[in-house]
């Protein structure tokens, strides 16, 4: 950064360097301060999870306290069934989206035809479609097909949310593999199946793994379909957490514990997949 200053060493430059060092450390402190402000709602929430209910909504706020695990154990009792639903639905939909999407992404990357690009773009466009544009008929169809409040019903919808993402991500990862590798495999007489399992999959595996993380993140956090297509038996965590919307004071600690448990896995996944997260959300619109 300071290559210009280092190149010439006149006495005036040393003071300039000192100024730039002070400026730089001030900017760094500012960055940390901004980060702290941004994380504050989360830090506050996690802290409340370890407080007693009285401490959680005490005024003035309690910053130092002896942490207790009581809220987490208590939250687990009600949280359990919803967690099970979330895992089932998110896992099921990710699996189904992969079964449908990986072959499609692979075929579109390696055997592009005349319509491939427009098909791919059309698929991406469905990811941008607002769910409110389809919820009414879906609700009626689900009602008539007895799919309301079932795991299977939500799996079907969450698959729709993630399928374009899977196709697009797999397509882009496989497109990045040097084409010569596939040509060499073809010369050696590899079938399409072998190309898929022995060339494409191993090379695109890291990308495909992070695509799975993205699917989990998006399905885990989805609210609209979850709220409108389930009520109790198949309701995932988002529905459970929203039941705290009217908690006036008394249940803050327990709510915070449940919320912490709910966001923790996604948070960790997201940190790991941060680069792919942006790639997945922008569909490669930025390079």
């Amino acid at each position, binding site marked *: *950064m300071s*290559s210009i200053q280092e190149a010439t060493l006149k006495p005036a430059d040393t003071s300039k360097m000192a100024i730039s060092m002070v400026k*730089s450390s001030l*900017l*760094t402190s500012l*960055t*940390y301060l901004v*980060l702290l402000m941004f994380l504050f*709602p989360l830090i*506050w*929430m996690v802290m409340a999870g370890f407080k007693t209910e009285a401490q959680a*909504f005490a*005024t003035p*706020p309690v910053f130092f306290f002896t942490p207790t695990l009581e809220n987490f154990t208590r939250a687990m009792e009600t949280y359990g069934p919803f967690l099970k639903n979330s895992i089932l639905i998110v896992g099921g939909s990710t699996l189904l989206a992969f079964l*449908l*999407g990986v072959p*499609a992404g*692979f*075929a579109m990357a*390696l*055997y*592009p*035809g005349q319509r491939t*690009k427009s098909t791919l*773009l059309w698929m991406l*466009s469905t990811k*941008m*479609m*607002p*769910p*409110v544009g*389809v919820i*009414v008929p879906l609700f009626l169809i689900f009602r008539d097909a007895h799919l309301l409040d079932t795991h299977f019903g939500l799996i*079907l*919808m969450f*698959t*729709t949310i993630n399928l*374009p993402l899977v*196709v697009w991500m797999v397509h*882009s990862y496989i*497109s990045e593999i040097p*084409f010569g590798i596939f040509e060499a495999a073809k010369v050696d007489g590899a079938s399409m199946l072998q190309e898929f399992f022995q060339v494409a999959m191993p090379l695109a595996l890291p990308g495909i793994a992070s695509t799975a993380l993205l699917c989990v993140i998006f399905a885990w*956090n989805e*609210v*609209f379909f979850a*709220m409108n297509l389930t009520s109790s038996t198949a309701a995932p965590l988002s529905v459970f957490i*929203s039941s705290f*919307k009217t*908690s006036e*004071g008394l249940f803050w600690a327990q709510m915070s514990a449940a919320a912490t448990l709910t*966001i923790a896995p996604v*948070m960790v996944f*997201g*940190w790991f997949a941060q680069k792919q*997260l*942006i790639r997945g*959300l922008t*569909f490669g*619109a*930025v390079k």
Partner: protein
Amino acid sequence: MMQSLPTPTQENKKKPINIAAVLLVLPALVYLIVTTQLPFIMTVYYSFFKWNLTIPNDRPFIGLSNYLSLFTDAQNLHVMLNTVVLMLSVVVLTILIGGAVAMLLNRRFLGRGMVRTLFISSFLVMPVVTAVVWKNMLMNPVFGFFAWISQQLGLPAVDYLSQYPMASIVAMVTWEWTPFAALILLTGLQSMPEDQLEAARLDGCTPLQEFWYMLLPHLSKSLEVVVLLETIFLMQVYGEIYTATSGGPGISTTTIPYFIYQKAFAEYNIGLASAAGVLAVLFTNLVSSVILRMIGRNIQGAQA
């Protein structure tokens, strides 16, 4: 690869259709058609009828009346205005704050990777969690953290969600979407050639000139992407509103998604809800056609 050749369409035309490849694409394609296009066509169809689920057998065709009501009824207009207000404010705020954060992160400093990673956290939080935490623990007029800060500053406590409902929702959604804007703008900043900036500095360019004449034009594409994508995603904001305000007080925070939920699932007014759904899709399509063109160019670029 085929598309990297100078005349891709001609090359593709010569190629016979690969049946195996088509068979691999077909299941995904059919699935998406069945779960998105067919329901949408049904939504369009319902939007021409006066249909209340409580009177299922009386379903008269009323043409464009539902649409007319969306554009003439003052309440419905207010809902559409709310949607635009939410979208515009969040887009502007996330670009301003996210841009500033991106500038801060575009320096070398100790722990930069960690800071960048932690910074995306608010984006990963489930919208419903954001809403319950902000509503109860931060914005509560008596016990909330913000009330305590106001008191420390000698200001009266504010009941944010009832006094400034839309601003409160904007604050939450901005908090969630700032990392998204920041990361895209950071990507843009990092692709700025350092030697150009240095040359400009040697020529005596002030930081302000540097920002205005060099960084901003360079960032224009990233900015465009942020605006377009956020518009699409913000059109769908629902969980925060459902949880924090339920669209209220009155209809002050009711946006199109919440309006549709209310019309369809509380009032069973399928016709009006469908018309609003069609409008939401049309609007999103308008925006996404621009972004899809951009992506289309990049898909070609990636294969070259």
